[in-house]
Structures are given as C-alpha cells and as structure tokens.
C-alpha cells in the first residue's frame, strides 16, 4: 500500500520527478559508457602494443625472459607447435630465434639483434611487415634475405638490394657468418628498434648459427587478447612435459601492465567522486522537496499514518526514483555504447601512435557486465542508504505543527 502511494506521489509532481530521474539516468549513462570506453581502450592498447612484435603470449625456455641467450633453446619445436595450434583460441604460432651479431657493410659495422622468423607465420603475430617503407618484407621461399631498420640502413649506408654481412657466434661456439641481401627497410618510429633490429628467414638463421631445427621462442597470437588469455591454461598443459615456460602478456610487457593498473586505480578515485557528487545532488533536491511537502505530511499524520510509515513512503519514493533512473540510464548507456562500439571513436593521439603500424586509430568501448552494472549498482546503493536523512526528518514530524508549516 505504501508502495502504491509512493509511486503515485512521484507522479503527482511530474516535472520534479522527471528532473531527478534525468539526473540519475544521466549519471548512470555516463558511468556505463565511460567505463566501457575505458576498458575498451585498455583492451585496444594491449592488443595493439602486443601486435607490434611480442604476440599475445610466448613459449620460452626457462630463464630466457630474465636473460635471453641464443643458447637457451626449444629443442624440437615441431610437435609443440602442432599441439599449440589445436588449442582453441590460438590463432597463429610463430617460431623465432634471436642472436646478437655484428652486421656490417664496407667498413661500417654495428652490433645488432638478429631475429630468425618464419615469413609465413610471422606476419600473423607481428605487425613489423606493415612498417616497411622501402622494398618488401620477407616472404616464404626467401633464402638469404634480410630486413633492417631505417636507422641501421642509414648507418650502414645501404638500401634495398644491397648486401650486408652478419658475423656472430653460433650455438656450438663456432663462428656464424653469412652474407644477406637487404630486401626491405622498415621504419617503426621507435629509434631503438630502427637502429638495432634485423630479421631474416628462420631456416637460414638456423643454418648459419648451427641450430638445426631448434628455436628460441614461440610467439602466439589469436583473434583477440582475451581468446589467448583464456587459452593459457590449455597452452601450459600442452607444453607441460618440456622445460619451457609460458609468458603471458603481463610478463611480456610489464610496463604496460603497470601503466594500465595505475590508470585504472586512479580512475576509481574519479568514479567515486562522481558518485558522491551525484548522490549529494540527488539527496539535496530530495530533501528540498520533502521540506516542501511538510504540510502534506502533516495531513497524512493527522489522518492516522504513523511517522515511520510516512518516512518509509518517502524512502520508497527515493528508491523507485533510483531504480527507474538507473534502469533508464543503463538502457540508454548500453545503447550508446553499442553504437559507438560499432563505429569507433577517434581521439587525438591514438592515430599518431598506431597508424604507422597499420592498426586502427579509433577506439572502441567494450560493454561487459562489469562496465554495465558496477557503477550504477554502487550509485543505487548509495542513494538508498542516503535516504536515511529524509526518512529521519519525516519521522520526527508532528502533525499539527507540520500542517501549519507554510512556505
């Protein structure tokens, strides 16, 4: 009965009710969208950064991450790769080798990190091939080809078509020496990569560095980072009996992980202040309307309603207001999020970072139960709890003096 009264009370003052509803709905809408957007941005940044070279996860020999060395190898990668490909969520597995060597042309020579990669698999894990500015990336069938960074090319004074020599130490300690033709030059925009990285076909690397069919790491990619993350358990199981470790994205990019955690934790502060302010505003306007209705409450009291009941009625009005407002806000927020998720939003800065890698410069919000419900639920609870103030005020009213109260 009180509920019915409360509901009708709300609609006796449609303008006031609608305004309060609008405030709550707007706040809820904003929270849903912003949180979806924020989580979407995190996901996009993670994927984009990992797509540059790392891959979404890697299989490595024990101790490789702390101290990478040519000597730490995965000995029979073939069966392992075959097993990994059967894990649902895993899209591509790219075997890689890495050694430190002197790369030279004429009388110029520089220490360089040389990668051996599979030209067919590698582009499915890394986007380096999109940054080629001169010539082309490696392709299947290449033998003595190599791609080098723009700054290294400049230092060596070579262009596509020229040859360079590579001199390093092979796996068995002997000298690894080779002459390669530069088929492409890449420009990633990151100075260190452009200055110190070269990629050559895996088979040729293995031959030159006396590795037979051993590799150093397996880089794993998939449709989305989430796919690979949820496949990590299965991936671990399929390499269980080797002396190998699976490194998840947090291990591969700890700096990014730290940055995202910091940003998320800090933004919790902002969300909290937003909720506090909204609740405060709602409460105050509600308090004001309660004060306006003192006469009305006086009448109710005088016809026999108990103060507590009047208080509960007011509290119910507040609760309905919150529920309806939040529901509307969530609904519209979901709709807006889904629309933006379809088209994407371009913000300044994202294009600069990602476009050179052939990655989209737009950001997409991601709707999830967390982003959809967490903020509204907290706001709703806060409002309901804060309803104690008007309740107490009403509870203390006395019929006669209330009825006398004028504006």
């Amino acid at each position, binding site marked *: 009965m009180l509920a019915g009264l409360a509901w009708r009370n709300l609609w006796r003052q449609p303008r006031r009710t609608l305004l309060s509803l609008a*405030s709550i709905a707007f706040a809820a809408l904003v929270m849903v969208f912003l949180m979806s957007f924020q989580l979407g941005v995190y996901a996009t940044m993670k994927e984009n950064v990992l797509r540059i070279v790392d891959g979404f996860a890697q299989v490595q020999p024990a101790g490789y991450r702390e101290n990478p060395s040519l000597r730490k190898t995965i000995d029979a990668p073939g069966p392992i790769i075959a097993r990994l490909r059967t894990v649902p969520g895993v899209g591509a597995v790219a075997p890689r080798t890495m050694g430190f060597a002197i790369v030279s042309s004429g009388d110029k020579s520089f220490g360089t990190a040389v990668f051996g990669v599979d030209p067919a698999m590698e582009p499915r894990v890394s986007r380096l091939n999109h940054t080629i500015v001169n010539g082309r990336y490696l392709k299947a069938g290449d033998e003595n080809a190599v791609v080098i960074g723009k700054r290294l090319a400049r*230092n060596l004074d070579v262009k596509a078509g020229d040859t360079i020599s590579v001199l390093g130490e092979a796996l068995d300690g002997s000298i690894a020496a080779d002459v390669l033709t530069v088929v492409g030059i890449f420009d990633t925009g990151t100075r260190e990569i452009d200055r110190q990285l070269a990629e050559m076909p895996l088979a040729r690397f293995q031959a030159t560095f006396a590795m037979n069919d051993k590799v150093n790491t397996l880089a794993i990619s998939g449709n989305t980072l989430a796919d690979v993350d949820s496949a990590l358990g299965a991936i671990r199981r399929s390499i269980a009996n080797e002396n190998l470790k699976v490194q998840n994205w947090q291990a591969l990019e700890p700096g990014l992980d730290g940055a995202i955690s*910091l940003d998320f934790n800090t933004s919790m502060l902002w969300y909290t202040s937003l909720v506090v302010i909204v609740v405060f*505003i709602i409460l105050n*306007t509600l308090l*004001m309307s309660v004060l306006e209705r003192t006469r009305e409450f006086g009448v109710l009291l005088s016809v026999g309603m108990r103060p507590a009941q009047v208080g509960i009625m007011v509290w119910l009005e507040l609760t309905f207001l919150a529920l309806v407002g939040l529901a509307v806000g969530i609904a519209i927020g979901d709709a807006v999020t889904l629309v933006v998720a379809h088209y994407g939003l371009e*913000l300044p800065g994202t294009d600069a970072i990602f476009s050179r890698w052939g990655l989209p410069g737009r950001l997409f919000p991601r709707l999830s139960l967390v982003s959809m419900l967490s903020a509204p639920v907290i706001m709703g609870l806060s409002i309901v709890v804060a309803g104690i103030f008007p309740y107490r005020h009403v509870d203390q009213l006395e019929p006669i003096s209330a009825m006398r109260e004028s*504006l």
Partner: protein
Amino acid sequence: MNMLRLLFPFAWRNLWRNRRRTLITLLVVSIGVWSILTFNSVIRAWADGSLASSLKNMTAEAQIHARGYLDQPDIAHSFAKPSGNLEKVLDGPLVAHWAPRIRVPAIVQSEYETLPVTLAGIDPGREVGVSFIGEAMAEGRNLDDASDAGVLLGRHLATRLKTEVGKRIVIMANDANGRLVERGARVEGIFAASSEMEDQFVFTGLLPARKLLHVQQQLSEIAVMTPQDIPLAKALAAMQNTAPGLDIEGWATLQPMTRGIHDLTNGFIYIWLWVMFVLIAIGVVNTQLMAVFERTREFGLLQALGFRPSWIVLEVMLEAVQIIGLGVLVGAIGALMTVTALSGGISLSGLGLSAGADFLGVTRVLYPRLDVSEFFVTVVVIWGLGVLTVLWPARRAAGFDAIEAMHSN
C-alpha cells in the same frame, strides 16, 4: 531601474524567509562549484605529474645533440660546450634548467656478468629538476658533483650483476678514436626507478666520463626543461635559431609514444570535466525550478497585492542572481583554499597506488594548481546558468491567474 533598487533587497529578504530551501540551494551550488574546480585541479595535476615523470626519465622537455647522434649515439657524434648565443638562451628566462651530459653505449662488467648499458656522465647538481636521479636513491648516495668518479647503478641491474654499494665494476666503451677504453669504478649508490631506467643507465661524473672517452669539452647531449609558463615551442625556436648546426628537438618528436598517451589522457580529462559539469548543472537547474514552481501561491499573492508579472520575473531572477552568486562565490573561495592547502602535494602512496607508480617511476605526489581562466569560466557559466534557468518557470508562474494561483498547491 528604480524597481531594481527596490526589488534587490526585497529579493534578498525573500530568500531568507525560507531558510531551509535557500540553504539547500546554497549548499548544492557551492559544493558543486567547489568540486568541479577542485577536481579540475587535481586531475590536471595528475596528468601533468604523469607527463613530468615520464619526461624525467632522461628525456626532459627538449634535447640538444650533434647531428647524426640519434642514429649513432657514440662519442664521435658529440658537440662543443655551448657558447655565445646558445649559452645566452640556455641561461636566460626561456629555460628553467639545463643539464649537460655525456651519453654513450657502454658495457658494464662485474665478476659474474657483463651487460650492455648506456653510460651517462652527468653533473648531479644540474640534473635537479631535469631528471629523476636526485630523487631516486635507494642505497648509498648520489654522486657528489661532476668530478665524482663513482657510479650509480639501477637496482635491477645491480642485482643482475651481483654487485652492491662499495664494490667495483668495470666500464668499457669506445672512445673518440673508436678504441676500446675501460675504467674501474666504485659503486657509490643504487637508484630505484622504472625498470627501464634501472636496467639501462649507469651514471658517473661528467668529467671522469670525458676523461675516459678522451674528449675535452665535448658533450653528447643537453637536456632542457622550460619554466611552466613558457610554451616549449618558443624556447625550442630560440635555441634552434642560435644553433642551426645542432639537432634540437622537443619531447613530442623524441618520444612519440609518450606524446600519444599524453594526448589520450587529456582527451579523457575533458570528457570527465564535461560530465561533472553537466551533472552539477542539472543539480542547480533542479533546485531552481523546484524553488519557483513551489511558490505559485506566493506569486499569486504578490500579484493580488499589485505586483506586475514582469516584476515577479525580475524579483525571481534577482533572487537567483544573489543566491547562485553567493553559492558560486563560496564554492570558488573554498576551492581556492583547498587547492592552496593541497598545493604542497597530495601523496598517492596512502591510496595503494604506489606499487604501479613505482614500477613506472611515476611521481607519487600530486601538486594541484589553479588555472585562473578555467576558474572564471566555470564561475561565470554556472552563475549564468542558474539565473537563466529561472527565467522560463518564473514567466510561467507569473502568468498564472492570481486567484487560481493562490488556491494552488
């Protein structure tokens, strides 16, 4: 205008006839304005702090190099100490701090491990305000001055080398003639910063670094910080004009990734501020509308007493001007006081954020400051909004038939 003079104090007294309603409005407006202004300062301090921290990781706002250094960062690509006009610019008002450095690739060796690093020969006194090194010592001590021949290692690097304060390590590098040179050095201190800094940099005095590399007055790099109120572009242009033979770049060109993240963060901040603004605006509008619509009886009475409808509108607007104005004033002063009180620094560590911050070497203290123009804009807009909001309902309320109005409610 006489009416104005008459109505002004009348409006004021009217306000205070209903103390509770007025106080609540005052509260909503002042708290709303206070929070938006304080929030603005804090969130900007946070964004500025993040940028400043990443710039303090050896990038600074601008860097001066010899041409070709960025491709081949060796000692052969060094330049002479700045003199003449460049020195004037650096010592002038456009530059707050500038730090001269030797910065070359080198090898650091201990009994157990040999690792590639970047050797940075610095003047520790000049690095204050330019890089993190003065504030990051975890063990031992900072270098004394530019002639200190000891070295500072990052914590993670020291662990990998299995060395510690007081022990000796050996630095190897290629000198100006391409010859291999080396020097033993005592580890004077260990610093804690972002993992990248800890693993990459070994610091020693500028003069011993020069001596090792067989150069006299050369520098690899000058890192520059400008005062807060000077736009970087201006300082860059001034420096580039006086030294066209050198490579002078700003941080946005040197670190495009940092630039991208900074822009993104700023974008987000604008979104946040607009959201808050709209919410507070709705709150103010709400209170104002309710205030008017609840008072139709009163307006009817006034009309019956001879008030013209336009006077009612004017009266209501004057109430709004006064109460919103007061609220805005109180909120603004409160924000001013809060920001001034907090300008000594808000520590993030108590909020459990320090772990992530440590990892990145990000500052753990925020320094809010006020942006005067934003201040005024916010104040004026909210005031204007509050006043304009009552215009329509006031006109409606004034249009009621007097008798009907008195019977309503």
